[in-house]
């Protein structure tokens, strides 16, 4: 079918439509922004010159890379420990589920919540640091706090990725090693770890990329002593009224972001995506002995402590939402929820409408793109894939400003509508679905589709009747991710909310900056509840589709 695709009566128009959309909603706003940055009554490198002369900018680049590396290592290590415990620790099912539920918390909660909870818990007068340990000099602002908060937020990405990887390592391989007389540690080192290595590398890159683009955590916790690029770009635009400089900073961030993405592609490509087996259960139910009881206990203590800490953080948020003023007036009060369900209801409703609208549109786009990339050949296929993922790799601030600049004037005057928010999410977050689609397709023999074609079905019929049903899990995963992202994203949308369409996350940010902490907490709790509901529904649906579990959707969140 290669080569013919370009002349296929269905594929060709599809390719053209997808290209047109990517051009309009990814490349056009980006080019407008590039123009704004590098064209000031003629080509200008002023913005770049500003970058090099300002120490905060230079330091921000170094800090961003350092933070991404540290969070990547710590997040992956922690994720690996959780995954080992979950898969090989022989924990009871209910405990495993409970662990999953706790671990998912930071991943699905709105931005800022982890950072705020951390201030409550470990701040100079935090519940843990001061009231439990009596410490008064803890400084969580700067590298340490940002690192801790980001690690807590993003290690679940590594966990969910690695859990799938470890679960798919055939225990028979380990058993063979044991039967050859190897000790536990040796088996672990020479069999388990090497088999998990691609997964580990992938997890590291996913976590690093998430840290690199994170804007909310450093905004709260990094302070002036530890500038990082996304926050710096935001500050440049909003504080110094310097859009040109801010955009230039974002482009600086693009280099490591794309490097990580390329690195990840390389890993996945080299392994042909085959280390995640979607179907087919591994060997016989042998008793895996690769972890000693002592190791399991150690992992249990570590993971238990981390899970407990996460729970404490979120319990603080829950408490803040139910008290008049956490820290001062601890009387039970439903006033914050009353506000959420009166004055804040519009934001909740708007957010839900947009999130629900995103799902079918983004899901379909993701699957079609994934199909085009994985199953067809046409000139510029690679370029299309690359272009489509640009908005994902770019920091949200730049996407938001780019959209604002590009879509404010007729005939493309979309600002102020829900449409622009939907488009922003679809083109920013459907990559997860695309990736899931290509992964699923990689494990399905093309001959199934060929059979359909040879029986005389047109390509669109084949797509609808054969491909779509096969990639249903990917579609579902992609839609779930889109829903979660639409419910929790902030950096891009802060510039896109409008008089008619507001979003919950923006209200949360407002609450945090305006002393309405109880309100912000109540909004956060509501978002967490809604997203949990969605994730549970999605994982039930997945189980019905017999296509793995929640982990699949979860692992896509980081990517």
């Amino acid at each position, binding site marked *: 079918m290669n080569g013919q695709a370009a002349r296929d009566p269905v594929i060709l128009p599809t390719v053209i439509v997808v290209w047109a959309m990517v051009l309009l909603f990814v490349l056009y706003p980006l080019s407008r922004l590039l123009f704004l940055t590098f064209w000031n009554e003629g080509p200008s490198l002023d913005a770049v010159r500003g970058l090099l002369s300002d120490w905060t900018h230079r330091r921000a680049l170094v800090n961003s890379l350092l933070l991404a590396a540290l969070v990547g290592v710590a997040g992956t290590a922690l994720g690996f420990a959780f995954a080992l415990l979950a898969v090989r620790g022989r924990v009871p099912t209910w405990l495993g589920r409970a662990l999953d539920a706790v671990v998912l918390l930071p991943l699905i909660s709105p931005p800022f919540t982890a950072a705020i909870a951390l201030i409550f818990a470990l701040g100079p007068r935090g519940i843990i640091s001061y009231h439990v340990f009596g410490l008064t000099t803890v400084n969580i602002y700067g590298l340490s706090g940002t690192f801790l908060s980001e690690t807590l937020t993003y290690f679940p990405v590594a966990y969910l990725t690695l859990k799938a990887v470890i679960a798919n390592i055939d225990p028979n391989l380990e058993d063979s090693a044991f039967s050859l007389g190897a000790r536990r540690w040796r088996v672990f080192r020479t069999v388990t770890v090497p088999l998990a290595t691609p997964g580990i590398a992938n997890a590291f890159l996913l976590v690093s990329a998430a840290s690199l683009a994170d804007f909310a955590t450093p905004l709260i916790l990094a302070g002036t002593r530890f500038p990082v690029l996304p926050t710096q770009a935001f500050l440049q635009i909003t*504080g110094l009224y310097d859009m040109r400089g801010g955009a230039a900073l974002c482009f600086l961030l693009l280099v490591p972001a794309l490097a990580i993405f390329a690195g990840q592609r390389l890993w996945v490509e080299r392994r042909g995506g085959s280390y995640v087996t979607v179907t087919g259960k591994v060997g016989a139910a042998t008793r895996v002995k690769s972890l000693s009881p002592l190791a399991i206990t150690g992992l249990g203590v570590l993971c238990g402590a981390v899970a407990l800490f996460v729970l404490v953080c979120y319990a603080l948020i829950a408490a803040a939402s139910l008290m008049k003023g956490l820290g001062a007036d601890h009387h039970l009060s439903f006033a914050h929820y009353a506000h959420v369900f009166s004055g804040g209801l519009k934001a909740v409703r708007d957010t839900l409408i947009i999130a629900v609208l995103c799902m079918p549109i983004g899901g379909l786009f993701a699957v079609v793109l994934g199909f085009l990339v994985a199953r067809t050949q046409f000139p510029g296929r690679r370029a299309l894939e690359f272009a489509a993922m640009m908005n994902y790799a770019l920091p949200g601030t730049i996407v938001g400003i780019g959209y604002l600049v590009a879509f404010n004037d007729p005939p493309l005057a979309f600002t102020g509508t829900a449409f622009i928010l939907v488009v922003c999410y679809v083109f920013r977050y459907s990559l997860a679905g695309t990736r899931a689609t290509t992964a699923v397709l990689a494990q399905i023999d093309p001959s199934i589709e060929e059979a359909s074609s040879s029986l005389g079905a047109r390509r669109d019929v084949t797509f609808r009747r054969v491909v779509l049903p096969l990639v249903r899990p990917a579609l579902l995963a992609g839609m779930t991710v889109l829903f979660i992202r639409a419910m929790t994203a902030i950096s891009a949308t802060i510039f896109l909310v409008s008089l008619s369409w507001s979003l919950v996350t923006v209200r949360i940010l407002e609450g945090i900056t305006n002393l309405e902490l109880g309100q912000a907490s109540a909004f956060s709790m509501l978002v967490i509840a809604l997203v949990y509901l969605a994730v549970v529904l999605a994982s039930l649906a997945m189980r019905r589709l017999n296509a793995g579990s929640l982990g699949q959707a979860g692992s896509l969140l980081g990517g």
Partner: protein
Amino acid sequence: MVSTLRLFASVLLVLVFAGPGLAQTVNVYTAWPESLSQPIFKAYTAKTGVQINFIRLSTGELVARATAEKNNPRADVMWGAPGDGFAAAKEAGIIEPYKAATAEKIPAELKDRDGYYTAVSKNTLIFMSNAKLLKEKGLKAPTSWNDLLDPAFKGQIQTADARTSGTALTRILSIYYAFGKDEEKTVDYQKKLHKNVQVYTKSGGGCTVPASLGQTTVCIAHMPDAMEAKKKGYGVVVTFPKEGVAAVIEGVALVKGAKNREAAVKFIEWTFSKEMQDLLDKNNVYMLPTLPGASIDADVQALMKEAKLLPVDLEWVGKNRKRLVERWINEVIRD
């Protein structure tokens, strides 16, 4: 499948073309928190039937947005944001001069010389301290800029980041005017202050929560932040430095090319009427009204007796703001 798609297409079309196109509306960008601005906007709607659509954004976000929307403005009025934002807006060419009928009565230092913007209120800088922590450390609430340099306050002061917050600019200006308009002394003082700063917060009121909860002893912020904390029952003390403080002006301006110009102008006229200026007091805004004769909150009035307000030259601020902030970035916080 096809019918679902058709449904979504039609939903999208409705969303694209159905803006807030109702008869009498004014679109407002404000930096005031909803709790302060909404009662005032509601009062206007109740009086006139004109709907006020508003978005709350930080000053910088507000200016960035309005600048990006320059060719097709979405807002009609910029209402309630610090003066430096308006200076930037004037420079970016996104607002146009408009003088309300009562603007004549408003003192010259509270409005732009060319009439681009006028202050709806004056927002005083204050020191807000956590009473319990002061007691624990055996400290007195600071009553001089120099008190803040006491090593006892090391890591105990939070205040706003000059890159994001108008409050930070008010702080820098306060120091500038308090130290006899000597820029070198201003920078030097800030370097010393920096040693005691725990964290610079994104927003001006960002240190209110930490100071209220006892995460930090002193918060340099604005009057409404402290009054709200008090109102919420937190144990905080408000003091002023004897050398004096500046007050930020909260501006109001007409957006250039405003789509609902007529309604916007009426709303601005009302903003500077005694009726509205009295609302600041009635709605616990805790800022000083700019129209002479308007009523002032009793608590604020009592507190202001101790305050020495330094006159600020808006013209000078407009020209020198960027340099002051850049010196703060490049000299003060560099350690």
